[in-house]
């Protein structure tokens, strides 16, 4: 499964906000960290605001804050905001019949596994993984 740039940026952003839920984080900080323009990121964040995953606070000291439930919000919940996961094969040639059906079944299996995986990984679990990986990397470096 290949995710669009906006989707990946949304996932990065949600993880950044969820890691510091008590803070208002300026969009500029996230944009700089991931090498994106603030303008582009703002479009992604507005979608997250609409989905009530983050809230925006204007003015001095403002920014975005995580308001979701990290232990319930899954990667799939975020991804579906930006991706159409119900992709279908191109219209088959008239004689493709059973061949096309067989191919659709196999691709369906792959989709089901991918969706089950994305739907089972919560933001909290991923943050814990990042912590583990960070710890392991730190030990390896030290």
């Amino acid at each position, binding site marked *: 499964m290949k995710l669009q740039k906006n989707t990946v940026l949304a996932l990065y952003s949600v993880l950044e906000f969820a890691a510091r839920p008590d803070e208002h984080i300026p969009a500029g900080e996230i944009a700089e960290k991931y090498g994106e323009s603030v303008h582009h990121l703002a479009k992604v964040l507005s979608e997250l605001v609409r989905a009530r995953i983050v809230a925006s606070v204007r003015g001095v000291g403002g920014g975005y804050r995580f308001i979701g439930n990290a*232990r319930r919000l*899954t990667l799939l919940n975020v991804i579906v905001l930006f991706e159409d996961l119900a992709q279908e094969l191109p219209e088959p040639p008239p004689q493709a019949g059973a061949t096309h059906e067989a191919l659709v079944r196999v691709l369906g299996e792959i989709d*089901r*596994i991918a969706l*089950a*995986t994305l*739907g*089972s*990984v*919560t933001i*909290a*679990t991923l943050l*814990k993984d990042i912590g*583990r990986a960070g710890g392991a990397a730190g030990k390896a470096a030290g």
Partner: protein
Amino acid sequence: MTIEPQRAPERVRKTAAPAAAAPVLHIRTVKAADLPAVVALDATVTGLHKAAYWQRVYRRYGVNGQGQRHFLVAERDGRVCGFVIGEVRDWEFGAPPCGWLFAMDVMPSARQSGVGGRLLAELAQRFRREGVRVLRTMTASDNSLIQSFFRSQGMRAGHLLPLELDLGSEGEGQPGAARKARR
């Protein structure tokens, strides 16, 4: 199989007054006297009362267990609020000996308090003592709650991939015939 995800946040536990501290949770091997509670817990979660089934499970994993088979219960305030069952299986599916977790339940009222995590940790510890280094389980692909729990405990997709075949009913013929017959 139903699970509870994670422990309460550290800061919540620290700020709780000593008098209001959460009751101690004990994880121990099942006893015959626990069976009615286990049956009731399972019935609460699944809606099915399977006393005979649980008697058989108890004989296999309770009475005759504790070698490579484990049937553990979580007890709080003298009441069983969860259980886990697993065993070490050797060289099945071409895999070196590993621990399989095949049943786990936590009373709905006891979820979100670390019961599932403690049960899993104790089962893993017992498997380690027997020398295995991998714990496996299977879940329904559409049960995201349970998958989320296992993932929150560090579990990942393994190298085994489950496959299944629709056998149809007797008389429908060769495997796959059921699908053709329904068209």
